[in-house]
């Protein structure tokens, strides 16, 4: 068969279309940038990122590390970014836990548990998240003032926040410990998911998976202990002094309300994903496991859960990315997440475009990393030789 003329060739045409599309895109971006620059220059505004090294002159109400008005913008942005990560970590973990529980209740045999699960999901899934957030925040503000704080165990609960007994260690040590623990967890996941080195004995691999977080926990505890001032007691208990509460660790209402709202709302969605995952597990596999004499817990943990998790994971990734974006609602109650720090920075500096670019870059980085890691996990545990989740 003779080769078709160039303009009739499928591959040439495809290449032409792609090139034209790319050229148009580059032209559009370039044009927009140039226009914006000339307009900003006409208004007397300078573009560029030099402002990142200027002092902010304002304060953040929640940070994991120390922040002062004399600190530069980049440090504020970094701390806001960490707040978003922290909020995301806590609410995703919480939402996953609630989701698993509610999903299991809904797919179980007990009618009372099923009803409870259904009520939960219908209630939390059908109200707008921002409404739920305002509700919890209003509830938190209705708590008694610090002088009449409710004592619960060693904790004090008031409208100013929940004060928990804390360890007398430095904030830096806590951050270091958190980083060590995260690294340990990441290492464990990596060892479990990777198939390298090939032919590593599964028993030894499983042992390694347990050893990695073990070492991390040990290192974390040592880091905490090293920063403890021997002159002070190990625990600091919150106590009311005059009009306010001192000592202990304060969890501010903005933080726990947002975390609680995302956790409960996300839990309802994840509950449905979990239920769907268990539905996708073939009845045959469960029966085979029962016929072999496995206990109900063994059937669940060795067969149903691993197979259900594989069915859930692709949808869970979407949900996680969605929930991370929901942390930006913090601005509605005044939790200084990445979005709120950016919004304040824009008000104070006027560098709108640059900050929005940083904001978008930050969220893209979080969600892209999250999705990439989970997608990799998804590929690593995919059923070999199956197109889908293998229900036969």
């Amino acid at each position: 068969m003779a080769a078709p003329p160039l303009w009739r060739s499928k591959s040439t045409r495809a290449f032409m279309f792609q090139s034209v599309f790319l050229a148009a895109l580059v032209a559009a971006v370039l044009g927009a940038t140039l226009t914006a620059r000339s307009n900003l220059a006409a208004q007397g505004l300078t573009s560029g990122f030099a402002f990142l090294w200027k002092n902010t002159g304002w304060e953040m109400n929640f940070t994991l590390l120390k922040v002062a008005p004399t600190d530069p913008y980049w440090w504020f942005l970094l701390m806001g970014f960490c707040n978003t990560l922290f909020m995301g970590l806590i609410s995703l973990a919480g939402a996953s836990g609630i989701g698993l529980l509610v999903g299991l209740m809904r797919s179980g045999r007990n009618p009372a548990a099923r009803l409870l699960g259904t009520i939960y999901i219908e209630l939390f899934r059908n109200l707008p998240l921002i409404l739920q957030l305002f509700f919890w925040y209003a509830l938190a503000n209705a708590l008694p003032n610090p002088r009449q704080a409710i004592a619960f165990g060693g904790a004090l609960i008031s409208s100013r926040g929940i004060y928990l007994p804390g360890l007398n260690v430095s904030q830096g040590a806590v951050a270091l410990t958190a980083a060590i623990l995260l690294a340990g967890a990441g290492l464990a996941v990596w060892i479990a998911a990777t198939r390298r080195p090939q032919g590593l004995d599964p028993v030894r691999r499983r042992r390694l998976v347990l050893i990695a977080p073990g070492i991390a926990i040990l290192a974390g505890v040592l880091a905490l202990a090293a920063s403890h001032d021997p002159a002070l007691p190990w625990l600091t208990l919150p106590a009311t002094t005059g009009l306010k509460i001192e000592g202990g660790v304060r969890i501010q209402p903005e933080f726990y309300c947002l975390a609680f709202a995302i956790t409960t709302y996300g839990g309802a969605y994840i509950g449905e994903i979990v239920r769907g995952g268990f539905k996708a597990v073939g009845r045959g596999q469960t029966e085979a496991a029962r016929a072999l004499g496995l206990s109900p817990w063994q059937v669940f943990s060795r067969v149903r859960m691993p197979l259900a998790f594989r069915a859930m994971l692709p949808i869970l990734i979407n949900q996680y990315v969605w929930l991370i974006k929901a942390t930006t609602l913090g601005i509605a109650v005044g939790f200084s997440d990445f979005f709120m720090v950016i919004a304040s920075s824009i008000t104070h500096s006027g560098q709108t475009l640059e900050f929005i670019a940083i904001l978008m870059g930050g969220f893209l980085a979080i969600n892209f990393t999250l999705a990439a890691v989970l997608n990799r996990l998804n590929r690593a545990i995919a059923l070999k030789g199956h197109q889908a989740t293998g229900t036969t």
Partner: protein
Amino acid sequence: MDLTAPAIEIRNLDKYYGAFQALRGIDLRVARGERVVICGPSGSGKSTMIRCINQLEEHDGGEIRVFGTLLDDNLGSIDEIRREVGMVFQQFNLFPHMTVLENCTLAPMLVRRTPRTEAEAVAMRYLEKVRIPDQAGKYPGQLSGGQQQRVAIARALCMQPEILLFDEPTSALDPEMIAEVLDVMVTLAQEGMTMVCVTHEMGFARKVADRVIFMDNGEIIEEAPPGEFFDAPKSERTRLFLSQVLGH
């Protein structure tokens, strides 16, 4: 568990799905080492009956004893019986997230507390018996249907059960793979395994069965040694069924 008692003893077994009666007063005795083939049209209750023996289905009336142990509400007796009764399913039902070897060692390690090295040695022995030791590291999804069913047989054998139940083991297989599975089943039968097989493979029944049972509409209609069953069936319904199965 008393190995001198009959392997399976079923008395007056009833099973309902809502208002529909799936089993009507079934009586069946299987001696240790006996091979019984159960056949009958679809919906006749054959699968339901053998699934009652290891309590994948709960019965509503009558008694089931396995080696003298009565199957009742006692969870302990169900666990005890499941350890001694292996099952092979129509759809293989292998665990797709585990390798062939892991499929075979899971239950011995969890239920019998066999150490891993020993469980793996036993598994390799049975994988050799079903003639696929070279596939031990593969996943079920990478095997053909016939290979998967042979793994499923090996998996059941790894628990070293006294009785094997087969629930239409060749019905989901392509014709060219049926023989390899039947060959394995014939070998097992010749080695004296107590077997209860629901199957339409009449050649297999003629070759290895001590007794053939015909079920229809939730009842046992006829029960006879294969020679008598195929050559001189007593009941009209059996004759009709045999003409449909063998007639082409």
